[in-house]
């Protein structure tokens, strides 16, 4: 079975065959033999050339999230010629960023006004929730199309906060 795997900027071609309970994996032509065991809870124990790895694998927003060594790697898996994973709405890319409140809270501060030009990662809004102030940043470079809240305002989960339109270059 063939896949295309994308992790961050890197995309590789993969092929998997199962033989005698082991997986023969090719990544961009390089072959590795993998001894893989799944636990009921979705934990994956891997032995690759003797080296041991323990990974937690789950699907989230159309990506496969692999927890490994304390980090979460988000991998997009596609079959050649057909995308299997779907990008997260509003994530980095060409689409506009529609920032909505992920939980009930209070708007502490708004750092942009409609019409502002913002760079990637520029602070947009600070929301207080879970006893913490949470800063939300631009996931696209562009122009602020809409600011739907003001500082001090209480918001519910799902309420629109800010819309950023991507810069056309």
């Amino acid at each position, binding site marked *: *079975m063939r*896949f295309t*795997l994308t*992790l*961050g900027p*890197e995309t590789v071609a*993969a092929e*998997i065959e*199962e033989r005698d309970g082991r997986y023969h*994996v090719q*990544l961009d032509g390089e072959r590795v033999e*993998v001894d893989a065991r*799944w636990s009921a*809870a*979705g*934990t*994956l124990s*891997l032995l*690759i050339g003797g080296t041991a*790895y323990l*990974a*937690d*694998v*789950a*699907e*989230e*927003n*159309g*990506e*496969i999230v*692999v*927890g*490994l*060594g*304390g*980090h*979460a*790697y988000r*991998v997009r*898996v596609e*079959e050649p010629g057909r995308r*299997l*994973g*779907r990008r997260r*709405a*509003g*994530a980095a890319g060409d689409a506009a960023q529609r*920032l*909505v409140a*992920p*939980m*009930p809270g209070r708007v502490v501060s708004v750092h942009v006004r409609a019409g502002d030009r913002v760079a990637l990662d520029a602070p947009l809004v600070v929301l207080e*929730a*879970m*006893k*913490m*102030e*949470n800063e*939300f940043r631009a996931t696209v470079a562009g122009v602020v199309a809409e600011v739907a809240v003001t500082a001090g305002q209480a918001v519910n989960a*799902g309420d629109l906060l800010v819309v950023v339109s991507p810069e056309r270059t």
Partner: protein
Amino acid sequence: MFAKLLVANRGEIAVRVIRACRDAGIRTVAVYSDADREALHVRLADEAYPIGPAPAAQSYLAIDRLIDVARRAGAQAVHPGYGFLAENARFAEACRAAGLTFVGPPPEAIAAMGDKTAARRTAATCGVPLVPGTREPVGSDDEAARAARELGYPVMIKATLGGGGKGMRLVANPGELGAALRLARSEAASAFGDAGVYLEKTLAEPRHIEIQVLADADGHVVHLGERECSIQRRHQKLVEEAPSPLVDPPLRRAMGEAACRLVAAVGYRNAGTVEFLVDAERRFYFLEVNTRLQVEHPVTELVTGLDLVREQLRLAAGEPLGYTQGDVIARGWAIECRISAEDPAAHFRPSPGRITAWRPPAGPWVRVDAGVYEGAEVPIHYDPLMAKLIVWGRDRGDAIRRMAGALAEFGVAGVRTTIPFHAAVMVHPDFVAGRLSTAFVERMGSGLVPRPDPARARVAMIAAALHAYRQAGRAWRSAVAPGPSAWALAARPRVPRVPR
């Protein structure tokens, strides 16, 4: 000792108190909001009763309901934990009025230390050095501007009834003062019901070092040495240790005696913490008194061998301390890392949701005080602290290595955690060398943003491919995704369909 005690809290500290009560032969009564029916503290208590909807104001902060449950369950005492009502003098008074023993200082001492400007005046009276600042809440903006000019910029605005970083604002120059005062007052009003604020001079990269004290009903006071809590982010402590790499025996004695003088002066009882800032010249300045158990109390426990919650229970029951300052002997080094459901790679954004994997580390001198379990939900309504990882070692290097190993072993899935942040701190040269300050996290900036290991990226790709391969070989089930995550509300999960 009490026969039954109500724990007026949730999360890891409720679990901590329940365990201490169990070991002391005290039955425990847990309370839970609608969001917490399946929480760990409900599982471990002897009894558990609902107290209202998820928002804390209607449950964990609802004094009447807590007193009512305590009465009906026949509890004789109430432990407030930390946060929520732990430093609320009205709650301590309500307990007293209901004939319940409040496990903490008397309401008068809570009130006396809760008013930060009053506490500063008391400290001055006891000869405890203060950070230069206003002795009274500042009135008009003009008065504040005058005071700030005298102190010299940068200055810190603090809430009179403050705590936990609320209502605090750093002001770098006179131009920022007006706006900062407005924000700080509004934050203080909404957090503490009092808009009063005062000003303090800002020390250059100070260290946060605090002294644990215990006081019994006969007025005997001992201190249990210091904790250093300089690794903070936005006034939230992240890493704590005992002892402090800065403090030598003479400084420890001086700070300890200052702390004991101060609490003795206000008729303090039970456990408390006197917080100080310490500058590069090892001068210490009184910051505030926390009239409750601290989150970071375990590091003191592991070096002194004293169970602080047990001591709180004993002292609340009227037992004498039973030992003197000379009996308190510290051994080795302890470090605590706060494991929160936050994403350190995304500015510590909260990451509530279902914990799909929870594999805490274990082994010698590794302690995990957790409020969660595998399959539990981290609700959006409360503090994102899931657990505290505490280790002990013979010396600081030993403790750091053990903490690094324990962090590497800690497996969590379903929510993002601060584990990789802590792992980065443990190998940071300044941390290893003990060069700490409250500016540590900010100064390090992106150096502490956890970076994934590039060599492991390839293994992650293999794992993802194996997962997809396996899913393709299975009958497609309708619900593959784990339980709903609040963060997913912004973008509904879409499950990749992998045809044969």
